[in-house]
């Protein structure tokens, strides 16, 4: 599936929740289930600055496609990252670099997107895109 298609699926999944709490329950579940990065990859290089919780995000290329792994000490943050990973895993660097990440907004987490926001969602997206661009050149 393309980035756009996966995003669309996620938006549909979230449209089932009309309660904030259900949305968060789901994000927490995702966070708990997320396969975590191995400890050795938690370095200063993979750490994302500017988050209130600590977030590590690593990336590797297999057969020209990118695969991400991540961790955070905050579980909701982990849930959000797991959505990002679901969208971007197995995509090409080029597609990732130009991708529109508006699904975040559509599932009602837009409030997490401000550049001055504590949880650093924008920083995560920017880190993903930086990885992607580094594989293009």
């Amino acid at each position, binding site marked *: 599936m393309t980035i756009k298609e996966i995003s669309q699926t996620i938006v549909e999944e979230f449209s089932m929740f009309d309660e*904030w*709490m259900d949305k*968060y*329950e789901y994000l*927490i579940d995702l966070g708990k289930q997320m396969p975590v990065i191995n400890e050795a990859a938690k370095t200063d290089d993979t750490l994302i600055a500017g988050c*209130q*919780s600590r977030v590590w995000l690593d990336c590797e290329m297999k057969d020209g496609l990118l695969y991400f792994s991540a961790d955070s*000490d*905050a*579980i*909701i*943050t982990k849930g959000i990252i797991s959505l990002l990973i679901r969208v971007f895993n197995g995509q090409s660097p080029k597609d990732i670099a130009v991708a529109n990440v508006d699904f975040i907004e559509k599932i009602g987490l837009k409030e997490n997107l401000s550049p001055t926001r*504590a*949880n650093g969602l924008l920083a995560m997206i920017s880190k993903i895109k930086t990885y992607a661009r580094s594989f293009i050149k």
Partner: protein
Amino acid sequence: MDKATSDFRKHFAALSASVYGKPLVYFDNAATSQRPDCVIELQRYMSQEACANVHRAVHRMAMDATDLYQKGREAVAAFIGSPSVEQIIFTSGTTASINMVANCFCRAFVRKGDQIIISEAEHHSNLVPWQMACLWYGVQLKVVPVLADGSFDLEAYYAMLSKDVKMVAVTHMSNVLGVKNPLPEIIKAAHSVGAAVLVDGAQGIVHSNVDVSALDCDFYAFSGHKIYAPTGIGVLYGKKEWLEQMPPYMGGGDMVDTVSFEKTTYGPLPLKFEAGTQNISAAACFAPALNLALEAKQNDALQTSLAASEKLMTEQLDSIEGLHCPSLHNPLRRGIFSFYIDGVHPADVAQIMDKMGVAVRTGLMCAEPLIKKYTQKGMIRASLMPYNNAQEVLQFIEALKRAVKMLR
């Protein structure tokens, strides 16, 4: 809800808001208080009907603005018991007040090899300025530890004092622990070795009755926005003997007597420390803001109700498993509750509580060394003002329990 509190709440339109369909519980007061309608109205008046620059103009709006501005200063002087109005210097906030002293006091009175004492419970705004001053002036910074329950370690402090200490800069009340420091003892001991004392009153002004003359502190700093006034205004009170001898912090309009390229002389207090156009409208707002604060302090029924809410909060927090609030049972704690909970991240908790209408703060709360003494991930802080009530405490506790349950 009791009548005293519900009457007092009427001053604050914001308190009847709802967020995400839930009634707002605003427990982030230690970050900034809500503004009462009288302050909002005066701010409008100053922007619309008395919108002018102060002092040297003779036209009507400028005269109105000047009078209201001066009334703000008089209100501050009266509220903290300053011996004179000229000792009230307007700044942009507590942080600016402290930086002013860290610069100008050190420039005038501190020499290489001297020492400055702060405590472990300082907000970054009463820590970093002194670190910077130490660097510039070759001074050594000494840190008084706090005990496990957040109390100031007086014994350790006494042991640090010597003739080399020129300044003791301590918080009146920690923004994390909410514990009031023993200022009379701290000040007396500092003076006995010839050191001056700056009190960071950002929280103390809210939760204590401040009388700078009785306290005999040398400087007292606080912000408007934590005590019902707008953002962008703060106060530095200082003893005349220091203020008169200290060089000005900034140069500019209004702080001078005469200016020539060869020689410039500075104006009298407080103007010498108030360069440029001040935050006129916010300064004027100190009058209604502090008037209301005084009213609240003198309203026994309101205070009784606040004490009851705090007691309820204490009991409820105490009953939550795995919750650690270092200063919870410290008898000197007021208004502020900071805690961490085993197995959950503070940021997660706050995010969920927000969706239940409850506003709290989380993280290192600009007091990194203090927080990290207790926990690495940061804390959750709930802070109350006289307008908060028991019903809100219960909504807060319910939201907290639900969040923890979801997260564990």
